[in-house]
């Protein structure tokens, strides 16, 4: 069998793409839709850099087949801001300098957004645990934890 035509809903826009079964969501986002905010890291599920939200929940797009997410609501880092206004988690990452090279940031931010949806008033320890599947080689995590805690104090911190 050849490629399959599927309809993806990414950041509220609908896209028609034609892909073989083995194409990952990560490949479609970066190579077909040019949404390169989602990062290509380990490609084996270990780093979290490729995290996107599917129906509001975090998934690793390097391990998700594109054909599986047909019709589901996909949010990438490009679609998190509301109009021109950054999401509270994004704002706090910038303000509190939780971003250095920025490679882990899209996955880290989306993981944090999904987590704040599940647990709107977390402790520092709970935040550490929640982001423990996202590897950052720069910040030492401290400022990331601070940023997530700060975002949790703003209304809408867990808005997806």
């Amino acid at each position: 069998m050849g490629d399959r035509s599927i309809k993806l809903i990414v950041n509220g826009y609908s896209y028609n793409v034609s892909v073989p079964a083995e194409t990952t969501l990560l490949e479609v986002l970066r190579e077909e839709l040019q949404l390169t905010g989602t990062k290509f890291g380990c490609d084996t599920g270990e780093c979290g850099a490729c995290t996107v939200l599917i129906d509001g929940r975090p998934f690793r797009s390097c391990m998700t087949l594109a054909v599986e997410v047909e019709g589901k609501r996909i949010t990438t880092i490009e679609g998190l801001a509301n109009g021109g206004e950054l999401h509270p988690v994004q704002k706090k990452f910038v303000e509190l300098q939780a971003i250095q090279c920025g490679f882990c940031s899209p996955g880290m931010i989306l993981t944090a957004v999904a987590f704040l949806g599940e647990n709107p008033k977390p402790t520092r320890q709970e935040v550490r645990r929640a982001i423990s599947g996202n590897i950052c080689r720069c910040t030492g995590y401290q400022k990331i934890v601070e940023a997530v805690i700060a975002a949790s104090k703003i209304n809408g911190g867990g808005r997806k």
Partner: protein
Amino acid sequence: MHLPHFEITEPRTLDDALLVLSDHEDRIMIKAGGTALIPAMRLGLANPDRVLNISTISDMDKIDRHRDNCISIGANSSLFQVRQSSIIKENFPALVDAVKSISSPSLHHSSSIAGNICQDCRCIYYNQSLTWRALRSKCFKAAGKTCHAVSNGNKCSAVYRGDLAPVLISMSASVVLASFKGKREIPLSQFFKSNGIWPNTLGPAEILTEVVIPIPKSNLKVTFEKVRIRSSLDYAIATGAVSVTTDSEGTCTDCKIVLGALGPGPIESFEAEKIIVGTIPDLAICKRAAKEVINKIHPVANTESTPEHRIELAEFIVVRCLCKALGIGGGD
């Protein structure tokens, strides 16, 4: 690296899935969340011609009390669902501990309970890229004639590192296996065959559909411990679960001691259990049982830790699990 080419079938019902499995001619593999299978495919360790994506089957992710004194967990239930479920939290807190210890919380949405149980054994000489492996001859697990972990070894000793099977076995769980011919239910302990090449006895046309756990009586306590190098993302280097039932006098009437990540399948030490049963256990008895456990495990140098260290950990884990379950101090 792109995944190798395959075809995909996305059944809506269990019957459709079983039909596909029963008359397939190509190499077919079941995929649930894909968090174990997709990385294995990427490394060239699994090469199906066709992937049967069972996550599209509706109704296979229910957690309920549908039979007398048992809870049933549908095969596709995600680890997130399991750790959030009030029925599970209330009846099986040790299962929740085990789930929480797996990978990292953000991976739990895409990981299923059946995929966890049915995952393959792992080895530091096997779970590597094609390029890495090309530098060595093929080992038994890759259909070769040697083992890189044990010199002159004559079999594969890859390690079963799934965290849920040991704790589920300690709770006397069983699994329902469906094929086109019907269903069979077997104790989870009998599902494993202690073989590094492939750890379980699932037939080629079978799907695991349910995990069934008896609701514990109030005098049954289950505990779980796991040690891994980093406290997130890493697989266990040793893990263990213990269940104990005591009577009103404090005498142990039943005990299960099950270890994981120390061999090609979960390992139950019946001899160690006998040391505990019939006694009012104290720290010394627990330590004696833990010493006995060591006779049953034979780890080899194929994880991130040494066999000697993992043996020490096994002993430590058993003492700790027993003491926690029995409310004895000094287990740390």
